[in-house]
């Protein structure tokens, strides 16, 4: 198989895949750095991690994968000309993104109330950097989903859904590394 036909196999726009790979590499490097710094103080990292709200974060995983499901369904429905259903699914996906951000915001507020900030321990520097950068992507994704629910050409929806699935993928790896591997 030639390189050109291999690239043609990718669903959607090539540039979206370049973005997906770039984001995975950036977050992956961040997670590797986190695990590397953890080696300098495993007990301190485990203690710091015990302050996190695992249940809320686990619930957020269910929220994001459900939101991703709606975004994927939206593309399918738009392709079979169920335009209204596709729009509703995209708006639902965006609303679940907002739910994710509210839960994340509550978590940050709780940390602040405990006097925990990025200077408290290196763990929290990575925690705020990685989860905050991810939350910024969720915020951007909510805007993109709403935009493509309005400009609902199938190619637009596909690109918007791909961005959203990338956000989902990053969280699936970030959650165990930051919240569970103590």
């Amino acid at each position, binding site marked *: *198989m030639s390189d050109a036909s*291999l690239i043609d*196999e*990718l*669903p959607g726009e090539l540039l979206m895949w370049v973005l*997906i790979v770039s984001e995975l590499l950036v977050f*992956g490097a961040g*997670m*590797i750095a986190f*695990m*590397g710094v*953890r*080696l300098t103080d495993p007990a301190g990292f485990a203690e710091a991690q015990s302050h996190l709200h*695992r249940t809320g974060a*686990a619930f957020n*995983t*269910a929220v994001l*994968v*459900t939101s*991703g*499901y709606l*975004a*994927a*369904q939206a*593309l*399918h429905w738009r392709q079979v000309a169920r335009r209204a259903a596709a729009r509703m699914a995209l708006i639902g996906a965006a609303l679940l993104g907002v739910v994710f951000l509210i839960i994340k915001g509550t978590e940050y507020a709780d940390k602040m109330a405990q006097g925990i900030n990025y200077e408290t321990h290196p763990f929290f520097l990575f925690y705020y950097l990685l989860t905050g950068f991810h939350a910024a992507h969720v915020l951007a994704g909510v805007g993109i989903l709403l935009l493509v629910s309005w400009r609902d050409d199938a190619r637009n929806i596909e690109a918007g*859904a*791909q961005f959203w*699935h990338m956000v*989902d*993928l990053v969280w*699936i*790896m970030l*959650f*165990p*590394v930051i919240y*569970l*591997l103590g």
Partner: protein
Amino acid sequence: MGDNTLTRAWLALLGLSVGSAVLTLLPVPAAVMGGGILLLALIKTRVILAQYLDLARSPAWLRGFTMVLTGFSVLIFALYLV
């Protein structure tokens, strides 16, 4: 990509997430828990790539992404065990 395939993928993702939560509650050695959690996360990423991102139709790309993510998970697990 049909409705049923996506629905099955979504249910699988929810089930795998519940599996991770249950694993953290079990009295198992840290290495087993860490390895199990990372393995479940890896399977979840594959489901998202194959079904949500539709790479099931591009097996070569799906294989490539899976290999890289597997390498990443192994590295994270190794750092966890040190």
